[in-house]
């Protein structure tokens, strides 16, 4: 059983997944941030592979990508850092990024090295289900990497069912039709969508992401989903605090 499956078999509620960009704010911050997240009580560590053209991301994550690339982050270095953090970190580690840097690294080489380094899953927003099934699924399965698909408020029930069937691990429910970043409290319309997802009784657990930025939004998401993903808000915190005081950030989100 992979660490993601192990987590979801043990914990059903209030799961906190935290996203940050590899190599941000400095190149050497990737490992200490992971270590601190584990100590502070996060459940999943989600690390972004920086890309020059992140079309699903809002300004905060775009900026962290630019900084990370200027710092010299790339797939090869990130995999070395993941290997390094695995000396202490036991939490599931998920890499999130766009397809192109992985294609250039070599998809099979990526799968093999990521798996060997201790990566449990990937989220590739610009890899649609049809491409996954056609080209990548076999490789991901062979190397025990769980692939997480996104669903959004405009995804039809039929398609959500298909995505559920193609998923092993968890589903990433995007909270609104939007790019990443905080937008204040969730609206009633968004809650209705969360409720709709909850009532589908999917085979896989789901986490809500995009716009989860504080205790209120996290708590709302957790009422319907197995947990939630915090990204832009954490990146903003890292930028303001030069990568420090991670515990205080987690405490400001996590439900006790």
């Amino acid at each position: 059983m992979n660490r993601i499956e192990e987590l979801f078999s043990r914990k059903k509620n209030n799961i906190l997944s935290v996203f940050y960009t590899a190599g941000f704010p400095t190149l050497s911050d990737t490992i200490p941030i992971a270590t601190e997240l584990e100590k502070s009580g996060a459940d999943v560590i989600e690390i972004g592979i920086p890309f020059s053209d992140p079309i699903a991301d809002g300004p905060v994550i775009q900026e962290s990508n630019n900084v990370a690339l200027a710092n010299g982050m790339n797939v090869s270095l990130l995999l070395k850092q993941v290997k390094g953090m695995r000396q202490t970190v036991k939490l599931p580690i998920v890499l999130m990024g766009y397809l192109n840097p992985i294609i250039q690294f070599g998809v099979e080489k990526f799968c093999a090295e990521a798996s060997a380094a201790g990566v449990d899953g990937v989220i590739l927003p610009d890899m649609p289900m049809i491409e996954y099934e056609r080209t990548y699924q076999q490789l991901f399965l062979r190397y025990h990497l769980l692939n997480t698909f996104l669903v959004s408020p405009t995804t039809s029930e039929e398609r959500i069912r298909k995505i559920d069937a193609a998923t092993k691990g968890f589903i990433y429910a995007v909270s609104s039709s939007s790019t990443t970043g905080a937008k204040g409290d969730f609206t009633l319309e968004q809650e209705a969508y969360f409720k709709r997802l909850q009532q589908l009784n999917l085979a896989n657990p789901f986490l809500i992401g995009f716009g989860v930025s504080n205790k209120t939004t996290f708590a709302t998401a957790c009422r319907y989903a197995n947990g939630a993903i915090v990204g832009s808000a954490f990146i903003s915190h890292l930028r303001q605090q030069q990568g420090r005081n991670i515990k205080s950030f987690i405490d400001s989100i996590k439900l006790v």
Partner: protein
Amino acid sequence: MKYQVDENGYYGSFGGAFIPEMLYPNVEELREHYLSIVREESFQTEFQNLLHDFVGRPTPLYLGKRLSERYGAKIYLKREDLCHTGAHKINNTIGQILVAQRLGKKKIIAETGAGQHGVATATVCALMGMECIVYMGEHDMARQRPNVERMRILGTKVVPALSGSKTLKDATNEAMRHWINHPTDTHYIIGSVVGPHPYPDMVARFQSVISEEIKQQLITEIGNPSPDYVIACVGGGSNAAGAFYHFLNDEHVKLVGVEAAGKGVDSGQSAATTALGKAGVLHGSKTLLMQTTDGQVVEPYSISAGLDYPGIGPLHAHLFETGRVTFLSATDDEAMEAGIELSRTEGIIPAIETAHALAVLSKIEFDKDDVVVINLSGRGDKDLDTYIKWGKY
């Protein structure tokens, strides 16, 4: 059919629809309906009437006598520069806005580099009374000021793309982000044969009127629909796709695409994608892409703001890979000199994009009977500042 898109949206190994789930319903809706919409009689009637009465089609196929003498071949110019708004771009925006209306969309967004596609989109939105937002790199807004003001006069909101390198690639990113945030009432009019399937095919179909007319006009001119050469410049590749379209399966017609070499293919300041690119995924399709070994997209360079895109359409990547189209390149200086040459031999000041296509005339050995068609994709009015700055005339 070997050069046409397959049922999965691929041209050989290129194409597809690599889009985030948030864009899936939009793109899927378009994929499901574009062919049936385009085949409707009412669509065709409206499209053809607008091309005729509003755009001014058919555009002339003009025999450039002095240019022909100089290069020792029969050189015809397909006068897309005479289209309303000054370039071929409007063929596509007319087609797409009619599709958008039939899909019930209320708002239009677009990206633009040099501003020609932005102006063509702003124009059809004014024509149809639809709200329009155009994303344009902040850097391009500064160097293409007249086109920014043309769009504003037409009632379009021009939004500067402030991310990345602040040029066409970033304007495209911002337009896609806008579309993610406005998934139901908005249609995105992509300006070239790029983006997720079905855009490359849809845009190529709307531009294919260029080669359709060339064939008919050549029958009148020379009694034969097939020339020996068709030459067109390639940024994303929409004018080339349109000029090549009906000749793709006519294998004895030599097709030549001309990319911008900037300051030289190996100078580090170039936009010659087939020479410098590798297969990758950007803006929703798998295609040839200028990128670093880490897979980060490289900012291309050309004196022409319409050619500095880091990729080419997946159709062109396929045509390059199969050898069906020969890709050449022209440097900034070669293009500028060719632009001045056409101005003085034929009395036509071409767009600098188009001047790249003219610049390869001196690089090809023609027989004196060869019939050569150059797609004169746009006029040079928008480029006067660049001509003036270059200064060698």
